[in-house]
């Protein structure tokens, strides 16, 4: 933790870079919303040259996406690098990334979903604090997301105690509740995590997630419960979950039986059953439902900083104790 490199907090007038290391923007003009919101925050924008490249669901070739990442990152004027969106294909870049260069130029780097592949790799290779938070096309999707996004990139203070969003309609609460206790306990450690699919995709590579003594956060979207079982079981077989200090499971949008476009089973069980079965007996605190992931309400989680999870059936407290920027 002593080696942790923290990027400088943003201030008005700063230049932020936008790249598309995974999938392209569905429509080019979508970027206009992002640029106008950044403008409202007093930030100037530099777009990567290949942001609009399209090749299947990849935003250009590996070479094109890599070039943007390196060119934007090395620019001394750029103080933060935001990913336009997630999707697929960021992990293919990892063997070619110049991590030494990234380390020499600490910057705020943010994204989620497929960007998890970059977050974990960059954090582990450079000791830099990186941010699991909305992509550049999503930070303005809700007041809740916007609140934590601004706090994470503009303030030096720790994000502190994480509170839930105000329900839009109290008569029709959204499943899951925000704090489903899977296992009680107290845990303290640096944060790491992201999309479960991406954590799985890094297994067996030089960028495999390090979880020992850490508060691990995971989230998923559009996967059937048995697929989540497969991923959690793989992590258990690899010893990745048993030694964590605590586990946060995010909202997990569209993870009910039959929601994925992949194989379907005629008999199934719920995600909650899978979580209780796989994560309920590890002897560490585990909570399910906190609002981060693919829902429109998501708080930002900086990888590398200290956090505390207190989990009892009476109360769940999750606190980010350490500042993420200088």
């Amino acid at each position, binding site marked *: 933790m002593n080696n942790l490199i923290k990027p400088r907090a943003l201030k008005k007038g700063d230049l932020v870079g936008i790249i598309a290391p995974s999938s392209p923007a569905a429509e080019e003009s979508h970027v206009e919303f992002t640029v106008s919101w950044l403008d409202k925050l007093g930030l100037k924008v530099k777009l990567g040259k290949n942001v609009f490249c399209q090749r299947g669901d990849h935003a250009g070739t590996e070479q094109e996406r890599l070039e943007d990442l390196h060119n934007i990152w090395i620019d001394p004027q750029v103080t933060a690098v935001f990913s336009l969106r997630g999707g697929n294909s960021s992990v293919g870049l990892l063997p070619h990334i110049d991590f030494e260069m990234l380390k020499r130029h600490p910057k705020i780097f943010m994204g989620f979903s497929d960007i998890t592949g970059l977050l974990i790799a960059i954090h582990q290779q450079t000791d830099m604090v990186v941010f699991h938070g909305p992509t550049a096309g999503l930070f303005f999707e809700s007041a809740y997301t916007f609140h934590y996004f601004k706090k994470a990139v503009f303030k030096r203070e720790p994000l502190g105690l994480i509170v839930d969003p105000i329900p839009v309609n109290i008569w029709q609460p959204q499943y899951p509740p925000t704090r489903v206790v899977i296992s009680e306990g107290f845990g303290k450690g640096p944060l790491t995590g992201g999309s479960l699919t991406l954590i*799985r995709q890094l297994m067996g590579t030089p960028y495999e997630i390090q979880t020992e003594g850490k508060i691990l956060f995971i989230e998923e979207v559009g996967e059937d419960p048995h697929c989540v079982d497969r991923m959690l079981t793989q992590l258990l077989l690899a010893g990745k979950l048993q030694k964590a200090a605590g586990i946060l499971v995010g909202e997990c949008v569209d993870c009910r039986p039959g929601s994925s476009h992949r194989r379907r089973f005629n008999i199934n069980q719920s995600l909650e059953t899978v979580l209780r079965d796989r994560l309920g007996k590890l002897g560490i605190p585990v909570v399910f439902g906190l609002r981060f992931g693919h829902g429109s309400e998501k708080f930002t989680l900086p990888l590398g900083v200290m956090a505390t999870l207190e989990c009892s059936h009476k109360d769940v407290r999750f606190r980010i104790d350490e500042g993420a920027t200088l």
Partner: protein
Amino acid sequence: MSARGKVLKPPMLKKGDRVGLVCPASRPYERSILVKAIACVEEMGFVPEVGKSVLNINGYLAGTDQERLQDLHQFFADPKIAGIFCVTGGYGSLRLLDGLDYDLIARNPKIFVGADEITTLMLGIFSKTNLVSCYGPNLDQISSAEALKSFQQAMTSPCKDWQLSASSVDWTTRSSWLTNGAGKVTGTVIGANLNALISLMGTPYMPDLTDAILCLDDIEERNDSLDRWFTNLAVSGILKKVKGLAFGHFSGCGPRGSRSVLSWEDLFYERLTELKKVACFGLPFGDSPNVLPLPLGISGVLSVEQGTLSFTESLFDI
């Protein structure tokens, strides 16, 4: 694969042998599948013995992990059982890897046949005991008289001259299967469902794939998921280490509602070209009517021009 040492081979089957039927992952989709599986085994001249838990229901699993393990252990331990066949795949054999009694299996080598997600058991057993096995078919994948005959032959003959051939369309004598590179490569043949293989990444059950001929198939997956997993193999360095790759059937694989317009074949092909890896597509293993059994763990030769995968040793201890 030199570091692994000598492989352990099971005895060959003969007519009248008793065979254990198991469901180490999911339950058969419907009861009649089990009836057909029993008939199929009898038709081949073996005597089926059905595991106690195959019709148990525990969510998507055929019984609890303990129940499914018990069926496997009982059949491996029983001297009257000569081989073990899987009825169906699905998901769940991955959950059994930490609970399997590998010493018991090593003391009682038997021919074990499974496909799909059962890949994880076959590779786990191979990693821990050096016991070779047969990658597929699951009994519910046998849907033609030819497939049944091939399976019976593979189980009851030394199968040194066993061969899988990519097939050209009827009107041509030229090779019309997709290939990358040229020539022949020799190596240990490892057959796997891609998703199941990926579930072993980073675990102690992943076999060493150095110099292997890696044979991959999958069922009903999206292009972007297949791309993701093949990238996982590339970034881990495994694709660099293997001698060559053979691709079987990828039935039901495609966009499946995702936005990816590039097919898995295009995406795989790009990586194979970049790595200059010898590869052959369209071999008859995986989920299809003309499925052939694929010995797992023995030495084979992949010939790109001929579109064949043949074997230089027997799967059995003969």
